[in-house]
């Protein structure tokens, strides 16, 4: 398996990403930013890439692996919804409908706005 041979490299690069994540978390606390640490870490990593301090190839293997399996992390998180069983039984249908409507509105407004403006400016 190609992945097995790459494992040390992937592990090392994930460690690097983890360090930047910790720096992001630290920066947020230090500067009282209205951002979560992981998003600050993402912006920090982008700055490092844009400045040429980090080359894409130095994080591509580990980063690519994590991004390929990004959805995985949301499975254990979603299992936590189990705690809200009683609330769901009582008013789950109402809440579900409200969230569906608002999610639909948001997705369409963003999608159509971007597609409209994007189409106009790229032509």
């Amino acid at each position, binding site marked *: 398996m190609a992945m097995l041979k790459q494992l040390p490299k992937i592990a090392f690069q994930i460690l690097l*990403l983890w360090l930047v994540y910790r720096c992001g978390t630290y920066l947020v606390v230090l500067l009282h930013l209205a951002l*979560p640490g992981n*998003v600050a870490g*993402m912006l920090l990593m982008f700055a490092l890439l844009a400045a040429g301090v980090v080359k894409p190839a130095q994080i591509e293997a580990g980063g690519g692996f994590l991004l390929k399996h990004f959805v995985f992390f949301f499975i*254990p998180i979603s299992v936590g919804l189990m705690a809200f069983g009683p609330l769901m039984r009582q008013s789950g249908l109402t809440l579900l409908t*409200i969230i569906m409507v*608002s*999610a639909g*509105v948001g997705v369409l407004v963003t999608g159509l706005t971007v*597609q409209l403006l994007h189409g106009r400016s790229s032509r």
Partner: protein
Amino acid sequence: MKLLLFAGYLLVTVGAYLITRRIFLHFRYPLLNPVFLSTVAIIALLQATGGTLADYQPAKDAMTFLLGPATVALALPLYHNRGVLRKQALPVFAGVVAGSLATIAAVLLAGRVAGLGRGVLISLGPKSVTVPIAVEISRIAGGEPTLTAAFVVATGMIGSILGPMLLSAARVKNPVARGLALGTVSHGQGTAVALMEGETAGAMGGVAMAIAAVCTALIAPYYFPLFLR
């Protein structure tokens, strides 16, 4: 015994993911969302075996440990797509801000029509923003943070299933627009689904997630009260 349970939950979750991922990649149908299918299967298993969330917690903590570095890794597709960002700064910002304002207005108005209490309404307000920020917004506005966390997760799930269907129905095919829409409404989970559609869409999901989070945090104190009574 505890270790056995820990290993068991780890294996079941990874196994469920690998199987449902296969199913999704084969059919590419939004309702077959791997997170949705796996979550339903795992909750059913926990309930059938008398397992509780507390039993599952250690395995959950271990599995979500890498979510932070994974979010940082989003800088990579973002960097590869920096040309799009530079050339399309206006559509990107306008789209995400408009979507954030619209989804907040929709959830608060619909909630009021449904007769929800003020506390639940405020908790619903930041539901489209990534958990760590949403919880803070909710707390400051006078909502219930744990309830908000649950709404955020539910919105992530619903938006990432419903979103791609609606976008396709509205003929939004542009990957930039699709990624931004999914990230704006369904934060990390929407971004994850956008990543499965392609690299550009995934990168835009990450961008949208960041802009929506900052935008919602900044406007919440002034914008939420407009829809509350």
